[in-house]
């Protein structure tokens, strides 16, 4: 197998493995570039979030409470099974609005929970499914800050996609350069793109 042959195969197969991610980032970026969905839903009277719990909850909370450990107890009490969530303690301990905010990460049904510690009150909201939100959630998913193996693996996949994209671009440039007939047109395309981009950097 020659280098040229190998390069073409890498370019092709990389594109095929990462097909779903190309599509996700493409579709979701359209919705991000054309926002206004939330406003439209509001105008149509369709809620993005629906309250699923709003009741009293009295948990013993120490001053040095760990948000994640406390969140685990709140989730247990609400009967929500979740491994992928973030939790933050917000406000001052003596304030009435001192609360634990839990964000249950899910592509299909994310949940957000507010536990007002000094008011012994908890409320939970579940996102309604809309395709627009589904794509945007996938777009924003990533990072190694979550305390979850599943999320870490997704972050690795995002890294693989990015490295794959770089390899895909480089292998594409090699393929183009070896096609002697279109070198000129390719240079014009690349040059035009660069000029337009520099124009943006100077003009924006």
């Amino acid at each position: 197998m020659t280098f040229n042959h190998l390069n073409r195969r890498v370019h092709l197969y990389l594109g095929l493995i990462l097909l779903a991610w190309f599509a996700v980032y493409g579709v979701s970026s359209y919705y991000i570039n054309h926002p206004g969905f939330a406003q439209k839903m509001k105008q149509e009277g369709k809620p993005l979030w629906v309250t699923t719990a709003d009741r009293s909850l009295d948990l013993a909370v120490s001053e040095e409470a760990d948000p994640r450990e406390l969140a685990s107890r709140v989730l247990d009490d609400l009967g929500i099974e979740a491994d992928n969530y973030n939790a933050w303690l917000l406000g001052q301990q003596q304030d009435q609005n001192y609360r634990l905010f839990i964000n249950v990460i899910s592509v299909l049904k994310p949940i957000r929970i507010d536990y007002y510690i000094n008011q012994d009150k908890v409320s939970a909201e579940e996102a309604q499914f809309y395709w627009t939100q589904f794509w945007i959630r996938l777009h924003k998913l990533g990072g190694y800050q979550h305390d979850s193996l599943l999320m870490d693996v997704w972050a690795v996949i995002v890294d693989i996609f990015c490295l794959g994209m770089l390899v895909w671009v480089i292998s594409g440039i090699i393929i183009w350069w070896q096609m002697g007939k279109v070198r000129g047109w390719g240079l014009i395309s690349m040059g035009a793109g660069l000029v337009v981009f520099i124009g943006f950097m100077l003009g924006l």
Partner: protein
Amino acid sequence: MEGGRLLNLILRRIHLFLTLFLLPWLLIYTVSTIMLNHNSHLPTLKHEFIVESETTYPGSFEEGTDPSVMALELLRHLGVEGAHQENRRNSDGKLVIFRLDPVSLRRITYGPDDGSLVVERRKFSLRAILLGLHLRSGYRHSYLIDDAWAVSVDLVVAALIFWVISGLWIWWEYKGTRRLGVILTTGGLAVFIFYVFAI
């Protein structure tokens, strides 16, 4: 040239030239995505500003003038009109304008009492520039150049979808790669679908 071969050639050429044209956008989005994905491994991004000029605005504004009107007038006066955000600082009532220049973001502070006008520029930071460009989108500013940038983002969107479709077409044309291609495409899709339901 027969129809099928002509279509094949056209798809391949668009696939190629679109990539070459959009190269700067692809590099920016890819590198900035790596940065966003590794945010927890990187130091917190702090914007440091350097004072560019300290002057006095020669004009004045009537009391109750809308901050957006004041911001526009001040940017025109400084010759840096463009996409911006403004807000009045509660602590001292000064008007703070951020001129959203992707390369050198500026912070302009105007004191309505004494007419003081301080222009600061963000210290050069490649990370801040790339992240700023990644997050810049939409047709929300009233400047043609910003709408043009949003059009370029739409072009990237169209290109990503086109690469998926044309890539599938080109692959199917290579009979020798069909089998492994099906395995890899299915494998990638299976991982993706698993994640949609697992997360």
